[in-house]
């Protein structure tokens, strides 16, 4: 079968514990198996979200009714947003690649609390079920947008409570993952693995974990308040009882802005691994990248108000938030400069993960720079709540986190599954996907500047041409997606066996067999003075 390793004569994929078959997976506390469980469940949710996205684009193909009613459309973007944000990109890279690789990268046998790790996954599944229950039972799926803004979220007659509790449980799952990673990184580094020798992916997970831990509870309590409002009418956000809907927005964004950095930091970490490996060169500015990671994590906590420029905040709050929004963009810029400098005088081996990485940099720049347009006070007043914002966040959430996810998947695939994928198909898939992506979201920038509001089921004739192009792009992109996924699924089962270190990487996961043995290392690794995650010769 698979390439075997010394421990128990089995790798983690084929290992037989107390439970057999499926149970051996869903009750496994092995971090690698949990990572794969996350991969499969996230991929399922992701596919659901993509189908909803396609349905929306279909509806927007022409003004007036195309395939669905207004109510269905409103429910569709809400569910699409909730799935993509809470179930796909927030857990995304940390729960999948963080789980599978972080312990290996720091030379540990597992995470600090393996059972808690399994519990996180179970909670994730429970959260998903609750949200899905909101769709299938009761009086219709939630129709508030993923932001659940008060007071609409307690006026609507749709089935909000399960969705709110689902989001709460998902948040709890995310907190526990963060907690586990923090303790693991603090306590389980192998001898010689000093903080300054940690791979950058681990550093970004560390920063991310702090945000998960400190921001998520705020949205948790906010959602609880909305639920209580719906059940008892406590009046906390209800203007009729003296509550202030803007305070709801503050609390919501206190979490949800940092959450966007939960999404992007691990993505940046993965890119920071891939670029040095394929350039066969030491990462440029290791310490600067660490500093910028921590700066993003910290400053990112203090800029939430840029989502509320038109909500009616006081003047000083607006200047403050705009100023800090610009400042938080700088660490991202530093990262981009360092990545590009890493390529300088490298010896670049252009492979699929590297294609994904450079296209990541490109779309991330577009997404990030459009973020500057939104961060600026005057311009945001015009484009707030228009298709421009939708373009911004698809570019950066999907273009950023999504592309990095694919980059990471193609990078670590041989390690995780012990098999290699078909590179020609992988590259073709990437190209089609990339073209589709540009065609899908670029027109939205234009539509937003023209003034087309977001969350619009129907639109005026003047916005028609942009929408046609965008819908067309969505079809191209899905073609690319299918090529990629089919190729990966086939290769996971039938691909040629992979070497231990196909890309000549320097981090610890490349020193062990592919797929890794159950306890990762036969003997605990020791890092010497001159070793390092990027010490290429």
């Amino acid at each position: 079968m698979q390439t075997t390793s010394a421990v128990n004569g089995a790798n983690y994929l084929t290992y037989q514990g107390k439970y057999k078959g499926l149970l051996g997976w869903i009750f496994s506390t092995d971090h690698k198996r949990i990572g794969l469980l996350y991969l499969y469940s996230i991929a399922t949710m992701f596919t659901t979200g993509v189908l909803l996205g396609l349905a929306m684009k279909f509806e927007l193909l022409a003004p007036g009714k195309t395939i669905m009613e207004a109510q269905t459309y409103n429910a569709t973007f809400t569910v699409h947003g909730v799935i993509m944000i809470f179930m796909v990109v927030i857990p995304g890279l940390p729960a999948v690649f963080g789980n599978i690789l972080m312990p290996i990268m720091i030379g540990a046998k597992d995470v600090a609390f393996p059972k808690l790790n399994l519990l996180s996954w179970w909670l994730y599944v429970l959260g998903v079920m609750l949200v899905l229950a909101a769709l299938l039972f009761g009086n219709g799926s939630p129709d508030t947008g993923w932001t659940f803004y008060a007071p609409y979220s307690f006026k609507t007659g749709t089935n909000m409570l399960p969705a709110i509790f689902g989001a709460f449980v998902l948040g709890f799952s995310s907190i526990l993952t963060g907690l586990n990673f923090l303790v693991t990184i603090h306590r389980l580094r192998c001898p010689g693995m000093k903080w300054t020798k940690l791979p950058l992916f681990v550093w970004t997970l560390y920063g991310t974990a702090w945000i998960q831990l400190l921001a998520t509870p705020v949205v948790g309590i906010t959602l609880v308040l909305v639920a209580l409002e719906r059940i008892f009418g406590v009046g906390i956000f209800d203007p009729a009882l003296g509550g202030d809907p803007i305070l709801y927005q503050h609390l919501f964004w206190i979490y949800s802005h940092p959450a966007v950095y939960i999404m992007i930091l691990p993505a940046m970490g993965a890119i920071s691994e891939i670029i040095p490996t394929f350039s066969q060169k030491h990462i440029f500015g290791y310490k600067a990248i660490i500093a910028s990671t921590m700066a993003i994590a910290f400053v990112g906590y203090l800029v939430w108000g840029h989502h509320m420029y038109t909500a009616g905040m006081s003047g000083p709050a607006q200047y403050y938030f705009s100023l800090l929004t610009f400042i938080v963009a700088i660490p991202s810029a530093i990262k981009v400069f360092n990545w590009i400098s890493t390529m300088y005088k490298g010896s670049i081996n252009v492979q699929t993960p590297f294609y994904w990485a450079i296209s990541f940099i490109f779309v991330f720049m577009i997404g990030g720079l459009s973020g500057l347009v939104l961060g600026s006070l005057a311009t945001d007043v015009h484009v707030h709540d228009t298709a421009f914002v939708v373009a911004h966040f698809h570019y950066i959430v999907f273009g950023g986190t999504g592309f990095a996810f694919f980059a990471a998947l193609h990078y670590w695939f041989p390690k995780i599954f012990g098999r290699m994928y078909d590179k020609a198909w992988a590259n073709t898939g990437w190209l089609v996907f990339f073209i589709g992506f540009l065609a899908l979201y670029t027109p939205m920038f234009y539509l937003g500047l023209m003034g087309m509001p977001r969350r619009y089921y129907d639109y005026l004739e003047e916005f028609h041409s942009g929408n046609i192009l965008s819908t067309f792009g969505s079809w191209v992109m899905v073609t690319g997606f299918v090529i990629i996924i089919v190729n990966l699924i086939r290769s996971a089962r039938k691909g040629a066996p992979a070497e231990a270190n196909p890309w000549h990487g320097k981090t610890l996961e490349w020193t062990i067999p592919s797929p890794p043995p159950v306890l990762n290392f036969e003997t605990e690794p020791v890092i010497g003075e001159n070793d390092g995650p990027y010490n290429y010769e």
Partner: protein
Amino acid sequence: MEHAHHVEHPDMYDEESSKIGMWLFIFTELLLFGGLFIVYSIYRYLNPEAFHLAGEELNRTIGTINTVILLISSMTIAMSTTALRKGHKKVAIALVVVSFVIGFAFLVNKYFEWGVKFSHGIWPGSEQMLAEMSQGEILFFGLYFVMTGLHALHIIIGMIIMLFTIRGLAIGKVTIKRPSMLDNCGLYWHLVDLIWIFLFPLFYLIH
């Protein structure tokens, strides 16, 4: 399950890991309440008069009694960690039991306090509140019920953890060599205390 995992994974017990794990969890709890404290302080700032008036309706004596007993229970549970380290297992168990009982007394007090409010027709969304109170007062009582309610929920969780700890101590799972469960139970209980230290003045004292 237990056994299989020891094969799959060697014993990973580490006192310091458990401790920081607990602290990290406490941080999230602090921020959970933190969200409510933000709401409270904003609404207090916006409705000073109403909060003043509404605050007078709460019974200071019950509040003070609850503060005192909660502080005492905090001490007893802290002492039990010392007892365990000195090897006095029985004393340690007894001290946790005392803390548990005090926690229960706190809940009983709370029950009567809320009961009085209910009998006056004050509960979230009650018609009397809507009819007679100003918006600020409604907010005050809304927050009062949510915050003390959530705190009471934490007391209950803390007491459940105590039950497990007592069991652990009794059957020898929690020992001088593996004291983390008791320590963490203590940390959690102190967190509950810490939150009350702020809730008490905010609701009962500031008029």
